[in-house]
C-alpha cells in the first residue's frame, strides 16, 4: 500500500467512525515508516474536517461526530508518546488548553466534545469540569503562565454566558490577559459577544472549535 493509500485509509476510518480500524490504520502507517505528524496532518485531520463539514451541513449528527472524535482519540493514544519522542520532551506541542464550563452551568456535552477534539488535535488538556468559578480559572491561568496557553470556556445558558465577561475582566485586572488566548463557546455565544467582552474567538461546533483553536495558537 502506498503512503497516499494509507493516508486515505486513515481519513476514511475517521469519516466512517471506525474506532478500532483507526487505531489499526495508525499502527500500520507507523510500521510503514510514516511520522506521527504526517499521520495527523495528512490522514486524521482531513478526516475530521470532512466530518465537521458534514455536521455543519446536517448530514451527520452528534452521535456520529462523537464516534469520529473517539476514533481520532484511539489514534492519538498511539501517537502522543511518539510525538513527544519526535519533537523532544520539552516541546509544548500546539499548546495547553484549559477547558471548563462557566459557574452556574452544568451542561457539559459540548464541553466534553470540544475537550476531546482539542486533545485529539494535539493539545495538552487541563479539564476543570463544570460550574467553575472565575477565581479558580484565574488561578489555573496564573499557574501555567508562560506556556502556550488557551482558555476554552463553555456556557449553554445566557445567564451563565454573562460570566464569561467577568472571566475576561478578571484576567485583565490580574495582568494575565496577555498570557492566554481565550475561546468561548455554547449555544448563546456569538461573534458579537466575543468582540464585546474582548475574548479571541468562538466556533460553531466542536470540529470547528479545533480548527479555530489551532489557528489561534499559530
Amino acid at each position, binding site marked *: 500500500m502506498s503512503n497516499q493509500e494509507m493516508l486515505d485509509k486513515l481519513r476514511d476510518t475517521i469519516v466512517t467512525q471506525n474506532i478500532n480500524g483507526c487505531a489499526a490504520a495508525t499502527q500500520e502507517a507507523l510500521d510503514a515508516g510514516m511520522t506521527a505528524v504526517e499521520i495527523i496532518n495528512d490522514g486524521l485531520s482531513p478526516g475530521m474536517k470532512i466530518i465537521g463539514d458534514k455536521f455543519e451541513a446536517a448530514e451527520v449528527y452528534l*452521535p456520529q461526530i462523537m464516534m469520529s472524535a*473517539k476514533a481520532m482519540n484511539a489514534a492519538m493514544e498511539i501517537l502522543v508518546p511518539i510525538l513527544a519522542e519526535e519533537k523532544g520532551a520539552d516541546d509544548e506541542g500546539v499548546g495547553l488548553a484549559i477547558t471548563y464550563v462557566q459557574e452556574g452551568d452544568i451542561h457539559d456535552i459540548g464541553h466534553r466534545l470540544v475537550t476531546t477534539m482539542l486533545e485529539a488535535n494535539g493539545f495538552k488538556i487541563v479539564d476543570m469540569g463544570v460550574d467553575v468559578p472565575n477565581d479558580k480559572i484565574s488561578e489555573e491561568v496564573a499557574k501555567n503562565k508562560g506556556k502556550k496557553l488557551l482558555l476554552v470556556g463553555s456556557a449553554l445558558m445566557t445567564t451563565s454566558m454573562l460570566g464569561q465577561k467577568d472571566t475576561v475582566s478578571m484576567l485583565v485586572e490580574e495582568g494575565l490577559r496577555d498570557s492566554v488566548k481565550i475561546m468561548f463557546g455554547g449555544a448563546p455565544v456569538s461573534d458579537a459577544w466575543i468582540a464585546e467582552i474582548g475574548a479571541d474567538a468562538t466556533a460553531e461546533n466542536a470540529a470547528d472549535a479545533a480548527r479555530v483553536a489551532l489557528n489561534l495558537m499559530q
Partner: protein
Amino acid sequence: MATEYKLRMGDGKRVFMTKEQIIADLKEGMADAADLGSIPDLSEDELDKLVEILTMPSRMVGVEIGKEVPVTHDIGTIRIDGDQGNSGVGIPSSRLVGVMMHERAFGADTMELGHIDYSFKPAKPVIAQEMQTMEVCQQNTIVPLLYGAMPNMGLYYTPDGPFENPGDLMKAFKIDEARESMEHSAKHLTRDIIWIMQRMMASGSDGVNFDTIGAAGDGDMYASLHAIEALRKQFPDIYIEAGMAGELMLGMHGELEYDGTTLAGLWPHEQAALAAKAGANVFGPVVNTNTSKSAAWNLGRAVTFIKAAVKASTIPCHVNMGMGVGGIPMLETPTIDAVSRASKAMVEIAGVDGI
C-alpha cells in the same frame, strides 16, 4: 428622511425599519431557508406581497375575504384556567368550559382535550379521568374534539423514566448504549400512545393531535410515526394531526429510519411525506423564530420553508403559528401585529390549508 415602519425583532422588541431594510431582511431570510432546505426562493411577486403585509398601517391585519382557513387549537382547554406558566390566562374554569368557550365564543374549527402535564406518558395514570372528561366534553359539544399531547420521549429517560439518559451516556462516549436507550424508549412511547388513544377513542374522541413531534429528536419522530401507523390501522376513521416540534429533525440517534428514509436532518417539506405515509390526516409544519433577527427576516424565511412544505405535502398543512414559530416573535403572549401579519402571509403566500 425615508419612511420607517414599525416591526418587531424575533424577541418582540419594537424596531423601525425602512422599506429597503425590510426588503433586504426578507431576502436574507428567504435565502437562508432556500439554502438550508435546498428549496426554491419566493418569487418577486411574493416578496412584494410580503413587503405589503409587513408595511400595512393597521395594528392588525386579516386575510382577504374568501381566503379564510380552518383554525385548530392545541392546549386550549387549559389555556383558559392555566396560569402564565403554561400560556394560560388564569380564569378559573373546567376543561369542559375551556372547550365550550373555544367552540362557541372563539370560533375554533377543531378543538382538543389536553391534560395539564400535556404529554402522553403522564396521562397513563389518570386515564380514567381523561376518558371521563372526553366523554363529558363530547356530550356537550359538536366541534371535532381530539385528544392532544406531546410525545415527549425525554420522559422515558432517567431521572423521569426507566431508560438511562442518552445525554449522560453520550458524554461518556457510550454512543451505542445511548442509541439503544433511545430505541427502547421509542418502543415504549409508541406503545403508550396507542394504549392511551385506544381508551380515548372508546370514550368518543374524534382523533388525536400529536403536538411537537420530534421534541426529543429523531427517536421521538420514529416513535410517533409508528404510533400514527398503528392507530390508522386500528381506527380507519380516526383524525390524526401530526404537528412538529421544530423545523429540523435533530439527529440525537442519527440513524433511525422510517419507510427507508433517515429521519435525522429532515426539513418540513421532507417531514410532510412521512407524516402522510404513516397515515396522518393533517401535517403541522414548524419554522423556528430567530430572536436576534427582525420579523422581516423571520417571516421571509418561514414563508419560504412552509410554501415548500405545502407544495410537497399530499395532506393538508396546518402551519404552527404561535410564540417563537411561524415568523412570530418569541413572547409568552405574542403581539397581535406580528401574529396577524405572519398568519396572513402564511395563508396568502405559503398557501397553508389551516393554522
